[in-house]
């Protein structure tokens, strides 16, 4: 499919309904689609299951939790082991008002890649003998124990890239890549916010990180500063 370019983040969300599963790219401050998240907050969408590496306090996602828009979270980092500022998510989680599926980060990345590539599951040693192995099938291969872990897909993915062409080819900047190219493959509707949109041919064919086939919608929007309290 050829991607469609929208004028504003709000317009890029047309048709998005309550109850979606939503992948959100980014790692700490790098490569977060904050414009799209702010627009989604503004839109009032509810019943979201968010699939994202981390939920930190003082982020738009945590404000969405506070506003009761989030039903559940699939993440690698959401509850701090150390004391410090508690997120709204943590408060809600401890009150049993939101669900949390904690996934080791490498397994999280691989599950999303698998989901996008038609791989229903894979065998990893990560998590064997830990609480995160609960409910998972164990298999022996060559005398080593592995967990069978399922691929992961979502209804919608919000990603952030640096440069796009009008077809939807994407290039990421520095460590803003992280989960974005993976999530671009694994959702029914993929919406990218980008710093700039250029004509086809302006990106070298060898330098495309996410081929246009994966991207449905785009909007040009500068990266917003992301707060992070360490």
């Amino acid at each position, binding site marked *: 499919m050829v991607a469609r370019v929208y004028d504003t983040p709000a317009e890029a969300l047309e048709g998005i309904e309550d109850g979606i599963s939503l992948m959100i790219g980014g790692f*700490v401050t790098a490569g977060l689609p904050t414009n799209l998240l702010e627009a989604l907050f503004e839109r009032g969408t509810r019943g979201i299951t968010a699939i994202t590496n981390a939920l930190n306090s003082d982020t738009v996602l945590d404000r969405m939790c506070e506003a009761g828009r989030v039903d559940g979270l699939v993440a690698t980092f959401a509850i701090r082991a150390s004391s410090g500022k508690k997120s709204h998510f943590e408060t809600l989680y401890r009150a049993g008002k939101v669900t949390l599926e*904690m996934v080791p980060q*490498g*397994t999280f990345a691989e599950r999303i890649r698998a989901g996008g590539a038609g791989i229903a599951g894979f065998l990893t040693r990560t*998590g064997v003998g830990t609480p995160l192995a609960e409910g998972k099938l164990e298999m022996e291969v060559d005398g080593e124990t592995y967990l069978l872990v399922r691929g992961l897909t979502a209804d919608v993915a919000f990603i952030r890239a640096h440069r796009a062409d009008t077809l939807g080819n994407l290039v990421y900047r520095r460590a803003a890549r992280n989960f974005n190219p993976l999530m671009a493959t694994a959702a029914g509707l993929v919406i990218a916010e980008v710093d700039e949109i250029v004509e086809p041919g302006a990106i070298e064919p060898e330098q495309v990180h996410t081929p246009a086939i994966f991207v449905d919608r785009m909007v040009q929007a500068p990266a917003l500063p992301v707060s992070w309290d360490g």
Partner: protein
Amino acid sequence: MQRPQGLTRELMAMRVAQEFEDGMTVNLGIGLPTLVSSFLPEGRRVTLQSENGILGFGGISDGDFDQDLINAGGQPITLLPGASFCDSATSFGMIRGGHIDIAVLGGLQMSETGDLANWFVPARGGGSVGGAMDLAVGARKLIVVMEHTTREGEARILRECTYPLTGQGCVDLVVTDLAVIDVTPDGLVLREVAPGVTSEQVAALTDAPLRVPNSVAEMRL
């Protein structure tokens, strides 16, 4: 017994860095392990990998903050010539696929067979796993760096971990403020003690059985 004065965090980091050999690629976990990057041995080419998709970065940056150039702990970093970026699946492919020579992780507890617990604190009823479980099983060699005991003086090196595990039998070496201990097929073996600390003191503060060779070197820092 009075708990002896151990190494500072900086000295622990310095001792860990001595394990790095020329040409190795190393992943430093969040917290104390990150400090190790300030003490890389001179003359040895050590490549740093961060699980958020960076290979070949330098130290912590004190220049203008670039949101897109951070390590796994969210700290701003500098790039070295020949650095590269990749997505998180590729980055954890490096880790899980055995391409990282050494990972350094912090610890809460470890067992005599090298089980590690470092992500969930029962007293707080919380914790997050991040990339620790992948690093624990994937790195060719896993070094744990932690205080030898809790603030309350309880042993962290136990027969069995009481905290939820990060990985089973994954630790190869532990560096504490008091000692350097190898995890071997025959159990834990004391390799070095911190300056001014005796083997007996280390053994007394270690709940797991600890083999103490006839001669135990003092750490050289």
